[in-house]
């Protein structure tokens, strides 16, 4: 069978599996739709959270980014895992004890204020939409590369599948589908990584191979360690050292922080911990989620280093002066067709050459690193098909999780809690499904007509989550005296501060987007952490000079601080 048939087969089988699960687990009540009935086993919930979290960007792009920037890529590796420690220790158990459906529910009740709830709803919807646009695009790209259909057609197929199981199954359908999707995506990610680790270092575990000695084709040690080799190659070709990077320390610090605190403030992650039966389960579930995420996130940097060495050696050849185009391997020519690799023979010697600076002749898109790895390493066709199915699983699971938050925000937080409080459960469920349907249509629109600023809006999503929702939730749990005035003013100030900074440098004056003009040398990606500090400070000051918190809210804060008496997630 050729690659295309195999890919159709494997992707088709996984789609059939997801739809089968959706039919088996469809939701009958709002409770099942919003929080899967509150009865999900913590390990299953951990797996679903991991699939929800690891998006098309993690699966397809992350290893490529790390591969090109080396140490600087650590901000994503630490930032997107470290947030789970905050979730487990400071948020999940208390929010589970609080026992309602959504983040705006908590903020609205804790700060006894519709305004606070509305600000939280707006943040939640905005964050989810910025995210979802990129996901549908990911579906389209995978389809067009591996199934050779138009990107548009790919997006339509993806929309149809997500529509089917998210609208039908709600959180219940999504959770069980995500468990299956996690298994597909982690298998698809690990197989090529393990193959390539064995090939280059003789170690089965990429995490060990990452630090090991390189071996030659016969499996004998060469005496050179992978990372030494990489630092050497980078120096020769005029790049900064792979293990040292080029960003300033303060910027690395703030970006890591913004991503960590942003992770802990993302509504589609937090809502996961409402689906388990007990407070105890919410704690351990965050641990399992991180285990499942860490399997991939500790493999990513290893894969990045392997493919970096591989790529440089294939292009520049054994004598480091470039290989002739005619003798270059097929994968270079295959990806050249997609426009993601470009070769410009500047010195007209007929040889490819990759370096930093004038002599460079190659333009290589970072996104191809994971997708091209199986081809670079000459792996069998079924592995390539598997990677396509894995990328699809990553994109679909994240899209579904985000859609659920959008639909819940509309039907529950906006309609039920704001505009039409007397609505019946059945009606509310219907609105939730309509909202999910509309969400898919909008996501599809952005997938087909991608805004040119997808990468920029991801920075906004994390910045806003870190500077608005995260501080409001933390203060709501750990302070008995934080009042509604403090929380609302804090959220709005933090939000405006970060949004203004990001919009200024990304859209208004992109020419000045460099360290010389940044505040304290912090890039727009890292400003969310400063926004968070602004939020905490402003909230504290305002709360000291305004009214005290009502006694019933103080009692509520005290009651969420210990597990006993946690019922199932409920509405009132």
């Amino acid at each position, binding site marked *: 069978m050729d690659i295309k048939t195999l890919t159709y087969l494997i992707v088709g089988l996984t789609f059939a599996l997801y739809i089968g699960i959706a039919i088996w687990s469809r939701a009958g009540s709002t409770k099942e739709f919003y929080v899967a009935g509150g009865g999900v086993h913590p390990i299953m919930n951990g797996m679903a959270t991991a699939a929800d979290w690891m998006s098309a960007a993690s699966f397809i792009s992350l290893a490529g980014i790390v591969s090109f920037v080396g140490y600087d890529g650590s901000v994503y590796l630490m930032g997107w895992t470290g947030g789970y420690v905050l979730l487990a220790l*400071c948020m999940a158990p208390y929010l589970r004890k609080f026992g309602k459906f959504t983040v705006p529910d908590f903020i609205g009740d804790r700060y006894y204020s519709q305004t606070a709830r509305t600000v939280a709803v707006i943040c939640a919807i905005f964050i989810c939409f910025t995210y979802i646009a990129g996901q549908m695009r990911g579906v389209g790209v995978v389809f067009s590369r591996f199934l050779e259909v138009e990107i548009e057609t790919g997006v339509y197929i993806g929309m149809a599948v997500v529509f089917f199981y998210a609208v039908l199954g709600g959180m219940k359908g999504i959770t069980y589908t995500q468990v299956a999707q996690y298994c597909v995506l982690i298998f698809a990610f690990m197989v090529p990584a393990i193959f390539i680790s064995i090939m280059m270092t003789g170690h089965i575990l990429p995490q060990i191979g*990452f630090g090991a000695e390189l071996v030659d084709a016969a499996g004998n040690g060469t005496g050179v360690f992978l990372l030494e080799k990489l630092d050497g190659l980078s120096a020769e070709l005029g790049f900064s050292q792979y293990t*040292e990077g080029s960003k300033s320390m303060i910027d690395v610090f703030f970006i890591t922080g913004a991503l960590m605190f942003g992770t802990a403030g993302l509504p589609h992650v937090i809502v996961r911990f409402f689906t388990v039966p007990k407070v105890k389960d919410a704690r351990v579930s965050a641990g399992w989620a991180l285990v499942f995420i860490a399997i991939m996130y*500790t493999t990513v940097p290893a894969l990045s280093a392997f493919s970096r060495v591989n790529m440089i050696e294939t292009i520049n050849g054994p004598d480091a002066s470039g290989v002739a185009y005619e003798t270059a391997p097929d994968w270079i020519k295959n990806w050249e067709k997609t426009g993601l690799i470009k070769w410009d023979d500047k010195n007209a010697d007929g040889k490819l050459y990759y370096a930093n600076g004038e002599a460079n002749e190659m333009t290589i898109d970072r996104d191809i690193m994971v997708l091209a790895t199986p081809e670079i390493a000459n792996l069998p066709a079924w592995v390539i098909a598997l990677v396509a199915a894995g990328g699809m699983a990553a994109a679909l699971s994240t899209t579904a999780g985000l859609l659920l938050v959008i639909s819940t925000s509309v039907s529950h937080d906006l309609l039920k809690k704001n505009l039409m409080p007397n609505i019946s459960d059945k009606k509310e469920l219907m609105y939730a499904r309509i909202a999910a349907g509309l969400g898919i249509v909008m996501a599809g629109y952005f997938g087909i007509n991608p805004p040119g600023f997808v990468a920029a809006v991801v920075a906004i999503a994390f910045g806003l989550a870190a500077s608005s929702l995260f501080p409001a939730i933390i203060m709501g749990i750990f302070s008995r005296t934080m009042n509604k005035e403090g929380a609302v003013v804090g959220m709005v100030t933090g939000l405006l501060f970060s949004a203004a900074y990001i919009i200024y440098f990304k859209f208004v004056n992109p020419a000045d987007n460099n360290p010389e003009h940044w505040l304290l040398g912090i890039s727009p990606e890292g400003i969310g952490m400063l926004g968070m500090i602004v939020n905490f400070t402003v909230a504290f000051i305002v709360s000291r000079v305004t009214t005290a918190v009502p006694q019933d809210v103080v009692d509520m804060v005290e009651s969420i601080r210990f597990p006993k008496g946690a019922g199932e997630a409920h509405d009132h």
Partner: protein
Amino acid sequence: MAFENNEKAEGYWRENLRLVLGLLAIWAAVSFGCGILLVDVLNEIHFMGFKLGFWFAQQGAIYVFVALIFVYVAKANTLDKKYGVHED
């Protein structure tokens, strides 16, 4: 009230905060500390084929994060039992 008296409630919360803050100190030390602020110093040390600072930033910190959550789960569950506020 799930606690016998106010002192017990205060005591539980104090112990809980001490546990959380202690673990968060380690969390910050391995990521912001070893992975970022001290990275140049630690890079002088070699560890299993890695420069140590680089290893913390791309591998070590993540392993410690996972361990921290499971330590927290075990200790928090013990604390709940000590004060009789665990779930049935």
